[in-house]
């Protein structure tokens, strides 16, 4: 596709349920990032994938959070046993290489509401 695609755009779930958020990056982009944006907060780094290398998971807030990237393309962020504090917008971004001087291209995000 032309840009980074995320689904679902909105997800409402009950506390304790598991959720999966999907990211389809720009074709050919080897780097993929997940960020979390909570109300009134900046973007919080969660996880980074680069090619076939082991992901950098240093930003995941707890072991309830996990992510995978299949075939170097589509990524899924999974949150198990959701809590109310998980409510946020989850943003995915991709780039041609690990960002630094490079530009990240962001999707429109998945808004998660945990009741």
């Amino acid at each position, binding site marked *: 596709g032309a840009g980074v695609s995320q689904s679902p755009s909105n997800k409402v779930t009950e506390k304790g349920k598991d959720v999966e958020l999907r990211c389809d990056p720009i074709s050919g982009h080897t780097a993929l990032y997940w960020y979390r944006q909570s109300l009134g907060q900046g973007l919080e*780094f969660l996880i980074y994938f680069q090619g076939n290398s082991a992901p950098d998971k*240093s930003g995941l807030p707890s072991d309830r959070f996990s992510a995978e990237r299949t075939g170097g393309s589509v990524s899924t962020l999974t949150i198990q046993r959701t809590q109310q504090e998980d409510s946020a917008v989850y*943003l995915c*971004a991709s780039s041609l290489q690990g960002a*630094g001087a490079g530009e*990240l291209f962001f999707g429109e995000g998945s808004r998660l509401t945990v009741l």
Partner: protein
Amino acid sequence: AQSVTQLDSHVSVSEGTPVLLRCNYSSSYSPSLFWYVQHPNKGLQLLLKYTSAATLVKGINGFEAEFKKSETSFHLTKPSAHMSDAAEYFCVVSRMNTGFQKLVFGTGTRLLVSP
């Protein structure tokens, strides 16, 4: 450690007047700095970036920013605001993290433009 501080959570201007969004950074080495913009219900978009070349950086939509090492600042400016500039703006610094450069976002400044 690298970090950015956006000094104003909200800035209000009238259409046609200058815009100034303030950002101070902290970095233990020469940083890469960025400004991203987020329009309502849209993904983040890169406005401009500084990577140790010219200290005055020009971006899209008439925005520019000046890197001032002595003041550790990277303020975003535009001579004349347009209604379409109303959005959230994020100052971003890049830092090394276990083999890749991770973007660290400020908490954002919401720009309001009145007719």
